[in-house]
């Protein structure tokens, strides 16, 4: 029996991991490369929809369930049968998880490639609007095209964590999500401490000059959106596995576009530790509000669900007024480490006078 407080923390960690992944992907796009991706939802929903649409079908095909059932109409029966199979087969479960995540990333990259078409041609605000619209289009397709993820009803997702059994499922899910989040954090941090991180920041600071100094802006933006979307899709895919089902309406722009933006802006754009802090503050605050919902309600003249919007909106305003660069602002990132750079400097100074 896991105590309630621990369940709260495990639950928090699982959600936190997902938002760390998504906000880090936005940090690459916006913080480093300066692309105002107001269509973060596109990649996240793309990853989640992929998990809703594909792994279950493939497994149902492998285990011969599609002969008996229609995947969408008899989704409950299919999932029951798959649950039994996966529940006793850890290897198959984890293999499905890993393969699905890799493929979801590929789907994300493709969506990023599509999104990069306007990104190459449009500037700032127009681009932001276009990306926002593209994400809405994907959501509308998911909602109306029943064969994809069950349309209005949604669809269940085969559970890769079920085999461990009972209460431990959430703990396993949280560990897997956190592990992926850590890997992605390390990747993004390595990126930012390498020449490519520097080049992206240069592009962000001045596109015309970067182009005049040999940077292929078109390609860079395309690759940035592909990488960012691939990571965002991994976040969406993990959320689909965690929640066990995918419903098109569940993927809205507030949660998967605006919240990550708030996390990045509050924490500090172009600083991965800042983004980590922003995501942690945000997710924890939200979870606490939901957890103490019934305790808070008597003191509020309005419904408690608005409290999080009010508090987070206020937090955002305070940060933007007093620390416009975020709680942990961007810092110079030395590719070779500051000490090594200073040493090279000394050597150069000593050589010729």
């Amino acid at each position, binding site marked *: 029996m896991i105590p309630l407080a621990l369940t709260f923390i495990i639950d928090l960690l699982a959600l936190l991991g997902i938002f760390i992944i998504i906000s880090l992907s936005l940090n690459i796009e916006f913080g480093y490369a300066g692309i105002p991706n107001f269509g973060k939802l596109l990649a996240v929903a793309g990853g989640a929809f992929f998990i809703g649409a594909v792994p279950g079908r493939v497994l149902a095909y492998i285990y011969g369930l599609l002969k008996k059932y229609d995947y969408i109409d008899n989704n409950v029966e299919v999932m029951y049968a798959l649950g039994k199979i996966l529940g006793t087969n850890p290897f198959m479960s984890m293999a499905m998880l890993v393969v699905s995540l890799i493929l979801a990333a590929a789907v994300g990259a493709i969506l990023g490639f599509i999104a990069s078409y306007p990104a190459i041609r449009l500037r700032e605000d127009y681009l932001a609007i276009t990306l926002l619209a593209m994400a809405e289009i994907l959501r509308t397709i998911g909602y109306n095209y029943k064969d994809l993820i069950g349309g209005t009803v949604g669809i269940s997702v085969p559970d890769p964590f079920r085999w461990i059994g009972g209460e431990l499922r959430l703990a396993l899910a949280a560990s897997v999500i956190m592990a992926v989040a850590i890997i992605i954090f390390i990747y993004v941090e390595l990126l930012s401490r*390498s020449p*490519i991180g520097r*080049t992206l920041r240069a592009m962000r*600071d001045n596109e015309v000059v970067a182009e005049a*100094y040999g940077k292929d802006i078109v390609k860079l933006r395309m*690759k940035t959106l592909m990488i960012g979307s691939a990571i965002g899709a991994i976040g969406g895919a993990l959320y689909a596995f965690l929640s066990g089902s995918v419903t098109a309406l569940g993927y809205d722009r507030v949660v998967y576009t605006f919240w990550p933006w708030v996390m990045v802006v509050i924490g500090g754009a172009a600083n991965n530790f800042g983004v980590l802090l922003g995501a942690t503050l945000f997710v924890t605050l939200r979870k606490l509000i939901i957890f103490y919902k019934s305790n808070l309600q008597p003191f509020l003249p309005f419904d408690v669900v608005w409290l999080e919007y009010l508090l987070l909106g206020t937090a955002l305003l305070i940060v933007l007024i007093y620390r416009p660069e975020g709680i942990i602002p961007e810092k110079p990132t030395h590719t070779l480490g500051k000490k090594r750079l200073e040493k090279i400097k000394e050597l150069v100074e000593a050589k010729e006078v």
Partner: protein
Amino acid sequence: MRSEILRTDGVVKSFGGVKALKGVSIRVKEGSITMMIGPNGSGKTTLINVISGLYKPDDGKVFFNDKEITGLPPHEIYKLGLVRTFQIPQPFMKLTVLENLLVAYPDNPGEKFFGALRRGKWRKVEEKVVEKAFKILKLLKLDHLWDQQSYKLSGGQMKLLEVGRALMSDARLIMMDEPAAGVNPVLAHEIFRRFRELKDKLGVTFFLVEHRLEIALRYTDYVYAMANGVVVAEGVPETVMVNPQVIEAYLGG
């Protein structure tokens, strides 16, 4: 006689109804320091923008090393070995002084989304690039500011940074839009001396747009004078400076 590294043939460029360039043909000899002079609004910067690929000309052709580069995107022109600076300094504001120089190095192997992970592969190149950058910073007397974010620099220092960035690439031709504007005379002379040194040592060609003739002329091999979108005179400095059309363009008109 040495060959031409840069040639423009009848370049025309208009903005709306204004004809900024009305058929400009110039030739820059390899290994020379060639200068373009002319009053404000004569089209010098437009010409540089056309050559470097920022603008596409309405008519006419641009050749670099006998290869036509008319209308190529700027980053491709840069990689062919033609680099330019900007008249109003435009550093990458949030990058440090050192980083501004490092960015300008072409084809760093660490400049890839997956290549960046293999530090071993790009570390050696990066060390060499850093060493080169520090040498340039030392020359420009900016070395003490290497770790400053560049938006904190003064106008003159930004100008120097602009020069430094251009020196980072192994370019064959460097086009500079007023490298000495806003720089104190002592340093301006030093910059031009350094240009000559680089030219002699590495065979780099310079094509400069400059207003401060009293400083620049003595370092120059060949001069073009522009007025109202056309070349009005060309030749060695001594003859161009006494050309009546040039004098009229600067003082009259």
